[in-house]
């Protein structure tokens, strides 16, 4: 039975990495895809553990007075809580989404001569195997923190983070395995599935405000983890312990049924009440644009559309605290952040396109034309975000020269879409999904493509060329990036 569970776990991790069942593309080398999927799992565990270890080190060094920097216990508790949960949720959701709409693993299990308790056991063991490395690494860190450093803060944060992550996954799994019968319910479910993982993104973004929470008020006594981080009092310790025990109990109780439902995830098994309407046949670009948006909003990736909106709202909020004299540089610095955010929706569309990539690639569409709707979305997103920033700047009394680089900056995000297109095509032609190293590389390159024109703007300003010339310089550099990447996309011969 252990062998079956191990084989199923390997298949889940492999599908989470290649998405081959959903995309229809075969990995060029199955051996290396299997190896990469395992490395991906190992890397997730190593990266999250290393980050937690770093925070742990900073916290204890700061507490011991070895650092000039004062590390807030609340911030450490929240970061450790979020990181320990984030990697677990990501590994599980990767596997679960790759299985959507395919019942082949369930069919396989039920064709084996197993009793129902054995089926349950195999399911639990295989789902557990997806996150075993993370769990072992985190628990080791938690114990290290408790017994070596003799502090419960990191221990509580890790354990509560893991328990909450498993509960989050259980909630996601339950929402996704519901047989939705009406459109409203389906939309609600999709929204929940999209928004829940955003909680982690928000936690990372809101670390600064969190770390300034004062011990006064209800948080001091009742909110799990925060109570202990804020006061460290016996009541807070007891309260945190109770929370951890209750959450752990519920998470473990629900894990069995969740593991079983893992293999029976339906995929919007829904008949849409379509109003009688004629055929809507449009041009290829508009049709692809419509399809791209539909695909994203009908998948878990809708959250990647919502995340930039939330982050943009935070940037605008932070603008209030900026001194008038710093406005020019801050305006462009925030402008770069928002420009980067505007590339995210297009990136998420490529991720959504992974499902059904085969269907799109047998249609008469060049890669450049496939990228066009995504470029439109990136430019629209750019002007929505930057537009809000421009309005905020104008209200603060900024002149036209302050906002000129923002108005002229849309070609950078457009170019970054083409860059993602190149990486995406190369990845799916080799039959793999965007693994963590490739995703990080893609993100880094995207960052460079978006930020480079702004860097030239700053360089021109420092050389004393003036805001108008600096902005034009920025425009020329982004246009060159766009032209170069468009040339690569157009000339890249498939096959």
């Amino acid at each position: 039975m252990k062998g079956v569970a191990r084989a199923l776990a390997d298949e889940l991790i492999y599908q989470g990495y290649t998405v081959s069942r959903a995309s229809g593309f075969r990995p060029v080398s199955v051996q290396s895809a299997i190896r990469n999927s395992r490395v991906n799992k190992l890397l997730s565990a190593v990266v999250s553990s290393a980050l937690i270890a770093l925070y742990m080190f900073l916290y204890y060094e700061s507490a011991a007075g070895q650092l000039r920097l004062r590390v807030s216990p609340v911030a450490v508790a929240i970061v450790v809580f979020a990181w320990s949960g984030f990697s677990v949720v990501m590994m599980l959701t990767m596997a679960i989404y790759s299985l959507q709409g395919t019942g082949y693993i369930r069919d396989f299990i039920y064709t084996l001569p197993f009793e129902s308790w054995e089926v349950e056991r195999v399911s639990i063991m295989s789902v557990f195997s997806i996150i075993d490395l993370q769990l072992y690494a985190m628990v080791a860190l938690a114990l290290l923190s408790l017994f070596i450093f003799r502090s419960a803060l990191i221990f509580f944060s890790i354990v509560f983070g893991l328990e909450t992550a498993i509960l989050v996954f259980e909630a996601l799994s339950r929402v996704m395995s519901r047989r939705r019968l009406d459109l409203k319910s389906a939309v609600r479910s999709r929204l929940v599935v999209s928004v829940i993982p955003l909680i982690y993104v928000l936690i990372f973004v809101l670390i600064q405000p969190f770390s300034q929470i004062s011990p006064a008020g209800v948080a001091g006594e009742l909110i799990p983890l925060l109570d202990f981080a804020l006061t460290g009092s016996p009541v807070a310790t007891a309260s945190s312990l109770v929370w951890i025990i209750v959450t752990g109990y519920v998470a473990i109780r629900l894990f069995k049924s969740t593991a079983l439902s893992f293999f029976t995830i339906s995929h919007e098994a829904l008949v849409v009440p379509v109003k009688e309407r004629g055929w809507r046949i449009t041009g290829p670009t508009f049709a692809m644009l419509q399809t791209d948006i539909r695909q994203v909003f009908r998948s878990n990736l809708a959250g990647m559309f919502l995340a930039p909106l939330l982050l943009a709202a935070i940037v605008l909020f932070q603008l209030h605290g900026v001194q008038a004299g710093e406005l020019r540089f801050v305006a462009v610095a925030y402008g770069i952040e928002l420009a980067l955010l505007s590339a995210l929706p297009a990136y998420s569309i490529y991720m959504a396109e992974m499902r059904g990539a085969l269907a799109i690639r047998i249609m008469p569409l060049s890669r450049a034309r496939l990228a066009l709707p995504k470029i439109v979305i990136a430019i629209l997103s750019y002007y929505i975000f930057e537009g809000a920033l421009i309005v905020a700047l104008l209200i603060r009394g900024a002149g036209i020269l302050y906002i000129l680089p923002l108005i002229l900056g849309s070609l950078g995000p457009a170019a970054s879409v083409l860059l993602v297109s190149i990486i995406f095509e190369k990845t799916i032609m080799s039959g793999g999904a965007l693994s963590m190293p490739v995703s990080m590389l893609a993100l880094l390159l995207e960052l460079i493509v978006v930020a480079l024109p702004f860097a030239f703007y700053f360089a021109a300003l420092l050389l004393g060329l003036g805001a108008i010339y600096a902005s034009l310089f920025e425009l020329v550099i982004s246009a060159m990036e766009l032209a170069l990447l468009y040339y690569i996309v157009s000339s890249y011969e498939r096959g």
Partner: protein
Amino acid sequence: MEQHVLAVSNLVVKYGEKVAVSGLSFTIGPGEIYGLLGPNGAGKTSTIRAILGLVNFTGDVDLLGQGRPRGTLLNMIGAVLETPALLETLTVKEFLELVASVRRFNDVKRIEALVHAFELEQYMGTYIASLSQGNKQKVAIVSALMHRPKLLILDEPFNALDVKSARVFKEIIANHKRDGGAVLFSTHIMEIAEKLCDRIGIIDRGKMVVEGTTAQIMEQVHAGSLEDAFLKAIHAEEEIKELTEAL
């Protein structure tokens, strides 16, 4: 000289170190149905994927003398793949609208006639993800046929089809041939290959083993039926005997 619809020469497809197709060559003329037969893993699907540009390959693929079928040239092809290539988060109607839009095809009557022929009307508002395998196959077939392509590429197209739909599809293929269209057809079912195909290429381990009309192939390998010819061509007859005796 009559121009070919599809010419494949010296096609090589590799997956890492593994060679899936090794120097395969064949041509398909107008009004011709070419059957690609072979055992599992022989390289049929890899050949089809290479023609459609879905895997990297070396060698030449030429569609109607215009080069590799890429970009807008793919509009001359209608393909039904072994696993239906569909966008599962769209409804059937949304998917067919997308295909028609991308192919710049607006003959709605033709689409509706195909939808009716494959009895898909009741599923127009259903997400493709929740369709049965047979209905998914029908959607893939309608999307491949709607724009009257010059070349149909069909990889195990009768998979999961009910008897009525299979018959309808066979009639459509026959009409397509009569109108001068070409078909590249991959199947495991010898009876269908024998009935439908004008010429057949039997491949094994990525190489062409024997090629010709059914009669020519049977004559070449001295067999009484296409099934026997197939088994002889891939040297499986003796092996089958040994295997069944060992049972």
